[in-house]
């Protein structure tokens, strides 16, 4: 395998369609002022990127993306939306040219940086050559787990994963303490049909 040569294979076409839809959803999210529409579109965005991760063989990442992005964060954002206005205030066009120039310069720099990156799936790339190769070779004999990713996360990097879990647990406890019992009161009925908008 010499690298990722874009050809008109079915997988390439699926990737192309998924990425095009991702871009369309992102643009629609930027342009929409209905916050509920933005929440639903962000759920769709997560589903699309999960499908794209499956296409890249990163199944565990894809599952996390679907569970967290499309599931939990949609509900969390709906909860946040009930505590604020339903429509985003239109912004005055201010320093748009400066921001646009900054985005173009940074984007061009990032594209320039990709030239030096190893090809997709390159066996001699640093990410695949040293430690990754060891994991692939030794998991079967050292750890009785059929899935290499699970073996790396739960056994080779077990303490790391335990630390991460504690960080997430602490963050959850902190959010619950901050929101407290007060988060259950207030809020309002949600509908994004235009003329029922009494809050402006």
């Amino acid at each position, binding site marked *: 395998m010499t690298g990722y040569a874009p050809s008109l294979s079915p997988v390439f076409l699926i990737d192309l*369609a998924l990425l095009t839809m991702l871009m*369309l*959803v992102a643009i629609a999210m930027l342009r929409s002022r209905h916050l509920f529409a933005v929440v639903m579109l962000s759920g769709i965005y997560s*589903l*699309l990127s999960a499908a794209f991760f*499956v296409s890249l063989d990163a199944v565990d990442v894809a599952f996390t993306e679907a569970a967290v992005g*499309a599931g939990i964060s949609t*509900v969390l954002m709906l909860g946040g939306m009930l505590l604020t206005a339903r429509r985003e205030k239109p912004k005055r066009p201010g320093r748009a040219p400066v921001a646009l120039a900054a985005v173009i310069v940074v984007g061009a720099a990032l594209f320039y940086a990709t030239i030096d990156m190893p090809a997709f799936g390159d066996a001699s790339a640093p990410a695949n050559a040293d430690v990754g190769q060891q994991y692939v070779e030794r998991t079967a004999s050292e750890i009785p787990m059929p899935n290499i990713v699970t073996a790396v996360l739960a056994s080779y990097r077990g303490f790391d994963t335990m630390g991460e879990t504690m960080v997430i647990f602490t963050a959850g406890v902190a959010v619950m303490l901050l929101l407290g019992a007060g988060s259950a009161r207030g809020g309002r009925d949600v*509908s*994004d049909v235009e003329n029922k908008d009494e809050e402006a």
Partner: protein
Amino acid sequence: MMFAAVTAAVIAAMVLTLVRAFAGPSLYDRILAGNSFGTKTVILIGLMGFVTGRPDFLDIALLYALLNFASTIAILRFFSYRRSREEAA
């Protein structure tokens, strides 16, 4: 070849669902668009396994179907819970 044609059809259906999600106009149009888009993602992941000749992804597609169902229920429960609380108050 058959799987490729079905995949193309599913992607076309996904684009149509996206149009509904973009245009709205009501809350329920968008919830339904999100749910139906999730279903199409499940089908697409299943098809992708067959297109690449590795149908192991079917398990993942099944899990996605469960997740999609649960998250739609969660969104809808969220509104009905909110509404019944306000009616009681």
